[in-house]
């Protein structure tokens, strides 16, 4: 009998994540890849590889979440990222609170209740400002790899104000700033400030129930964490692997752990 109770798949806009959990809810296997254009084919391949590796049969439930969730025909059911992230983070950190999830395509603030279920949530509006994509696009103009963004932004005390929250117009602003000889790190710091400004306004909208928790790919960016903490005067805590929380929550809900 397989030790795997359920598999969670988070087909996000930037990365595709897969997590397998045992009956106790512990992670027994995980995968993370850049999202490919044919996400359903990619997920099938990832599922087969995981099943082969862990000796799991096709009977084990697979729950899909993320933007591509409806494309995953192999999934037993699909749930939104809101429910899944809330469950994953609640299980990992063991507490209720306010979760900020900043993904590639959207950002959301979720108030998690005492039982791990979402009590309230808010998502960014129909605009990429306040999402990982905002940093990705604008930083590309400066030629800085995504992994280095946070460190570079924290390496300086200088900050160039980015007045536009629109991703496309912010990029134009960067071009002007570069032309005027502004320090790229100061521009990066300004870009982080702009993103955090959008996110914090959502946090205030939903209301802060301490602690503040951070998940999603952007949670790996230390500058974002620190700036959210500064802007809210709250501690911001992270789960062990923030990027996997959606898939982890999906797996937990599949195994009802």
């Amino acid at each position, binding site marked *: 009998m397989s030790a795997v109770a359920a598999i969670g798949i988070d087909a996000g806009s930037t990365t595709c994540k897969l997590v397998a959990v045992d009956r106790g809810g512990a992670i027994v296997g995980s995968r993370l890849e850049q999202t490919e254009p044919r996400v359903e084919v990619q997920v099938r391949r990832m599922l087969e590889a995981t099943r082969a590796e862990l000796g799991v049969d096709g009977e084990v439930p697979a729950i899909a979440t993320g*933007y591509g969730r409806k494309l995953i025909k192999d999934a037993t059911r699909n*749930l939104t990222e*809101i429910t899944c992230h809330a469950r994953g983070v609640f299980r990992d950190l063991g507490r209720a609170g306010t979760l900020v999830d900043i993904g590639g395509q959207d950002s959301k603030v979720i108030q998690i209740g005492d039982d791990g279920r979402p*009590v*309230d949530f*808010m998502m960014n509006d*129909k605009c990429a400002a306040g999402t990982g994509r905002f940093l990705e696009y604008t930083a590309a103009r400066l030629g800085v790899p995504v992994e280095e963004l946070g460190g570079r932004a924290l390496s300086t005390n200088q900050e160039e104000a980015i007045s536009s929250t629109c991703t496309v117009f912010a990029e134009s602003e960067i071009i002007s700033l570069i032309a005027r000889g502004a320090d790229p790190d100061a521009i990066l710091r300004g870009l982080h400030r702009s993103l955090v400004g959008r996110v914090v306004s959502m946090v205030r909208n939903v*209301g802060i129930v301490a602690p503040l928790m951070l998940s999603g790919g952007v949670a790996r960016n230390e500058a974002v964490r620190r700036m959210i903490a500064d802007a809210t005067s709250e501690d911001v805590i992270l789960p062990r692997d923030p990027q996997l929380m959606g898939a982890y929550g999906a797996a937990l809900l599949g195994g009802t752990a």
Partner: protein
Amino acid sequence: MTTADALPHYVDSNRLEHFVNYEVVGKTAIRVQRWRDQWKIARRQPRPNSPLNPPLRCVAHMKEIMSRHYLEGRYASGVRKVAWVTSGAPTEPLQALGYFLVYPENHAALCGVRRKAQSIAEEAEHAGWSRDICSYARTDIGSMISGQTPAGRLPRPDMLVCCTNICQTVLHWYRVLADYFGCPLVLIDTPFLYQEAHDHELAYVKRQIEDMICVAEEIAGKPLDHKRFEEVMTNAKRGAELWLDVLNRSQHRPAPMTAFDGFIHMGPIVDMRGEAVTVAYYERMIAELDERIERGIGAIKDERYRVLWDNLPIWFKIGEFSTWLAERGVNVIASTYTYAWGELAPMIDPDHPLDSMARVYLHPVLNRSAGHKLDAMKRMVDEFEIDGVILHSDRSCKPYSLGQIDQRDRLVKTLGVPALLLEADHNDPRDYSDEQGSTRLEAFVEMIEARA
């Protein structure tokens, strides 16, 4: 040579067209269509895969009434005086004077339901109207410029009546209409109410209604018949009371109709309040709803959760939302928007028509404070046993959307009801993102399920 040129001079071509095309051929064709609709509904086979129960039978009558109304509009010019009016305008004296009334907002909604609004609105945008203007205004201005309308043709107005109790956009919109059509515009200014109306505010609005009557009498070439006016007021009161009763029938479990049904069935109370046909229609509708209640038939097959809708509908998404939510056991059973045409019924007093009109037309939900709407929503959550609230943040309707962030916050924090702010537009599909909208709706339903 036109038809009019071929007629003897003593025959009025407009009246002839109105008589033949509307009274004889049109009405008959529409009646036949109603019989066909009734026959289809009666013979409709149960649809095991549909989450919805069959539609109300009376919908065939509603279609007949609305089709007749729009058809008469095509042939009204030169036969009846025509007034274009805002949805919250005090129209009862105009009806008593025999005016044919056109509601541009309702016409724009018709364009939205028929999925014509975007292309018509683009006509206005190409002529220089900003996309930030209300999509109803853009749809109607686009229709006026291009002549495009799913209604066939709208009659030219002899007068315009604009009442600011629904928004300020209408003030500018109707000035554009007045300029384009070159006809008199009567403006009725209604002070915004933070509390109950003061006497001076009532007197101010009453005086403007009296002025409107003078202009309307002059254009109609006859004085207001007070007996007929009283009759219209009595019908208006009865129609609004019945509409309120219709909506309150959804307090039953399962609710016999959805709010989406309400958005469609509100046509007569908006366009024809004060007419006997509206009273008769809602009497028929209540009888059918009561029959459903008695037999325990809900609008959806498996009503597990009951939801309140705030703001205008998203006209181009009504059918899709209705089915999608019903598949998940969610019945949107009430809306603040449809309620607006019924909740003021107790204020209408046919014995004191002008005084009560001043009061009624000062008190629509959009002319009152955000706190008033919040109280109304809280009451509805209680009376309709609501499990969740969808607040449609309508890009076009700023007065309705203002305050929704705080209203949502209070509903969640004081009543513990899940509430969703859904960003869209009542008529412009370019302002609704399907992918993001559906994720929010799904998460909202998951939240309601988790509480159950």
